Each structure stands twice: as structure tokens, then as C-alpha cells.
């Protein structure tokens, strides 16, 4: 009996993690380039593989890389990627990838993210000097009609192997994701890719979590009633 209560309590704790995950999505409902996290329950089947559906076993979070909506901003250095590509960024800890294209120029005329990290082009950072700057759909940056540099756009064979950092960045620490040059994605200058969090989905998720939690609570209460009854009756014997 006690064992049953413990199993239920563990399941309830996992619902709390599930709520944390949904809340993080909700907190980022207006963060451009943000990709929603999905909390999944996986069951170790007899064969050792993981299947979905069983409650409260081996949960995992997966990133939903589906496309977010585009918002027009008319800001030249607001870049959105239409497709599965990522921008490559040089951070202090090495190369990272991002979908968040809110870039600006810094005091040296280099294209940087909002954290001040260099956005990578063909050979390292992208220096833009001059007037009449245009960024084409294939990521070529031209200044005054002459090609100056091109954005490095990368896609992954196994995006699920990417590790999500803060500030909209992703990293591939053990080279498991299989980075390759992306050519199908389109770059749109003057647009931002919005968060792909869907408010309705997260609301339903929250209702689901709350009700699941509630039923676990009821089961625990019932079990402890039963415990009480059995101890009471044994006591009377």
C-alpha cells in the first residue's frame, strides 16, 4: 500500500515538472525565435525502446522546431529564417546557433546579436560598412550593389541532439546533431520569426496537468483512507 502511494507521489511530482515546462513556454509566448518545449512521457517497453503514452515514466523534453509566424518590422537587420536553418553565432564558449534574428551593428560595424556576439558569415564575423545595404533571400549581404559577405546558415540532421541554452541559443557540444550547410531556407530581412508557442495548446496543457494532478491527489487520499481503515480494523481484532 505504502509503495502505491509513493508511485502516485512520484507521478504527481512529474506533473509539476510538466507544469514548469508549460509555464516556460507561456513566459516566452512573445519571444521572437523561441521554440516551444514539449514534455513527453516515455515508457521503457520490454524490448528496451521508448514508447509514448504510459504515465509518469522516464519523462523527456523535446523542442518543437516548427516554424513560427512572421512579423513585419521594416528593420533592415531583423532577419527571419523561413525553413529549418539556423544562424551561426560566435559566443565566448564557441559556436552556437539561433533562430532569433534581431541583429544590430556594433561600434566596429560588425553584425552582432543582442548579447553582442558576432554573427558568422563566410569567414568569421560580418563587417558592414557603407550605404544601401541589402540582404537577399539566400543570405547574401550586398553593400551599394556589391556582394560583401553572406550569412552562414546551418541546418541539422538530428536537431533533437542540440542543447538549448538561454538567450535563444542552441549548441551542439558533442557534434551529434550533424551540422550541414543549409540552402533551402529563405532569409527575410525586415521580418522577425515569432515564438511558435500556441497559447491555446498551453492552456489545454495546463488544464490537463491540473486535472491529472488532482486525480493523483484523489488516489493518494483513497489509498491513505484504505491504510487507515486496515490499521483501524487490525487494531480491533
Amino acid at each position: 500500500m505504502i509503495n502505491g502511494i509513493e508511485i502516485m507521489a512520484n507521478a504527481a511530482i512529474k506533473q509539476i515538472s510538466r507544469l514548469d515546462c508549460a509555464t516556460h513556454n507561456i513566459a516566452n509566448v512573445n519571444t521572437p525565435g523561441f521554440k516551444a518545449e514539449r514534455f513527453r512521457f516515455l515508457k521503457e517497453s520490454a524490448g528496451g525502446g521508448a514508447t509514448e503514452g504510459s504515465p509518469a515514466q522516464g519523462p523527456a523534453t523535446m523542442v518543437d522546431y516548427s516554424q513560427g509566424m512572421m512579423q513585419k518590422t521594416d528593420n533592415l537587420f531583423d532577419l527571419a529564417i523561413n525553413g529549418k536553418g539556423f544562424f551561426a553565432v560566435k559566443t565566448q564558449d564557441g559556436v552556437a546557433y539561433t533562430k532569433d534574428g534581431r541583429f544590430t551593428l556594433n561600434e566596429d560595424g560588425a553584425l552582432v546579436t543582442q548579447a553582442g556576439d558576432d554573427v558568422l558569415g563566410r569567414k568569421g564575423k560580418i563587417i558592414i560598412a557603407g550605404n544601401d545595404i541589402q540582404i537577399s533571400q539566400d543570405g547574401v549581404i550586398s553593400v551599394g550593389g556589391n556582394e560583401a559577405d553572406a550569412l552562414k546558415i546551418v541546418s541539422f540532421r538530428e536537431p533533437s541532439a542540440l542543447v538549448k541554452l538561454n538567450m535563444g541559443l542552441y549548441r551542439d557540444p558533442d557534434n551529434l546533431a550533424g551540422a550541414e550547410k543549409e540552402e533551402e531556407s529563405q532569409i527575410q530581412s525586415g521580418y522577425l520569426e515569432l515564438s511558435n508557442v500556441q497559447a491555446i495548446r498551453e492552456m489545454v496543457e495546463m488544464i490537463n496537468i491540473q486535472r491529472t494532478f488532482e486525480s493523483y491527489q484523489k488516489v493518494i487520499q483513497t489509498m491513505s483512507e484504505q491504510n487507515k481503515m486496515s490499521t483501524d480494523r487490525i487494531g480491533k481484532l
Partner: protein
Amino acid sequence: MIRALWTAATGMEAQQISQDVVANNLANVNTVGFKKARADFQDLMYQIYSKSGAETSDGGQLPVGIEIGMGVKPVAVQKMFAQGDYMQTSNQFDWAIEGDGFFQLDDNGRTVYTRAGNLKLNSDGALCNSEGIKLIPEVTMPPDAVDFTIDSGGTWTASDATGSPLATGRIELAKFINPAGLTSLGRNLYASTEASGDATAGNPGEEGFGTVSQRFLEMSNVNVVDEMVRMIVGQRAYEINSKAIQTADSMLQMANNLKR
């Protein structure tokens, strides 16, 4: 306690900042030379419970790990230097810049920058902004001049009643590599920072500098419809974050009710 409570609180805080920025934009919808701002957010760090690729108890590998994020944080309030609309006036000292560049003003020895070209004469005949801060390079109207013209290249001429020129000169504009890095001083003024880089001065109409239009003013670049939409989005996002807090709260209550 449940982390979701704090995560949702970061979400509400971020939406509040967004609303503050929208409110300031809307308050300045009719301010000459005003440039709108936008609050920018990024996701906070992730707590890793189990790494993807970690070994399970029976020797297998976890295909995906558990990473749970901690919410959102504001990173920047970015100014958008998109061109504002032009308004025609009949005042010869109303100038608008068409294209890149800022007017330079001398604020007690410090050079400050503005897009607001609603200039006035002070008692000495020098051109200044509404607060009396003089233009750089100085433009002085001779006492008996009645007419003042400035061409698109910034060359100005002050002439008397018969049309003969009494004084001429040329104004300069300033440009920045990264105008978004300028700091707002309020009063329509900006100052340079390390992020914006130093100002490059130049003649209007040359080397990428904008041209000057006399008897025009550049209005605020705030678009009311955009701001209204941003306000609605912000309000709804605030609301759903509060729902997340309510959910976490009622779950905590249920947990507390386990023991009767």
C-alpha cells in the same frame, strides 16, 4: 515550491515592460522627430535534469534529456530609426532630414544629436532648438535679414528685403554606425555611447547623408495600429501568464490538502 510560479512571474514582468514601452510610444505619437522603441526578450537558462545521450539503468541511451527553462528576461529596449512621416509647415526654420543623419546641438559643450528640426531663433539671432540649445555649426541670422533659405545640400542663405544675401554657410549632419546604440536623453535628444560608435560629420546629400527639406517637419514614426496590436498581444500574454500562476497555486493547494 513549484518553479512555475517564478517562471510565470518573469513572463508577467516582461509583458509589463513591453506595455511600458508601448505606452511611451503612444504618448509620443505626435512628438516631432520621435523614434519608437521596442522591448526585446530572450529565454532564460535551462535546468538540465538528465542530459540527452545519458545512460539509463539498463544500459540503453536516453534519446532526449529533460531540460526545463526558467522563463523570460528583457534584454534590450531597441530604438527603431525608421523614417517618420513628413508634415509641411510654413515656418522657414522647420527642417526635416530625408534619410540618414542627425542635427548636432551644443548642450553646454557636449554635442548631442536630434532628428527634431523645429528650430527657433534666440535673442542673438542664432538658431537653436526649443530649449535654446544652439545648432552646430552655428547659424546666425543677421539683424536686418528677413528671408532665410536652406537647400537640400544644407547650404543656407540669409538675405535682406531686396533679396541680396547678407550671410551664407553650410550645416553639417552627424551619422552613426549603430544608431540603435545611442542613448536617449529625453527632450528629443540623443547622446553617443560606446555601442553607437563616434559620430561621423558630413555634408547633407553626400556620402550617404540625408538631405535637408525646409518647411517640413519629421513627425513621430510611431504607428498607432502597430502599437495597439502590441498592446493587445501584451495584455493577453500577461493574462495567460497569470493563469499559469493560478494553475500552480491550485496544484500547491491540492498538495497541501493531501493530509487531512
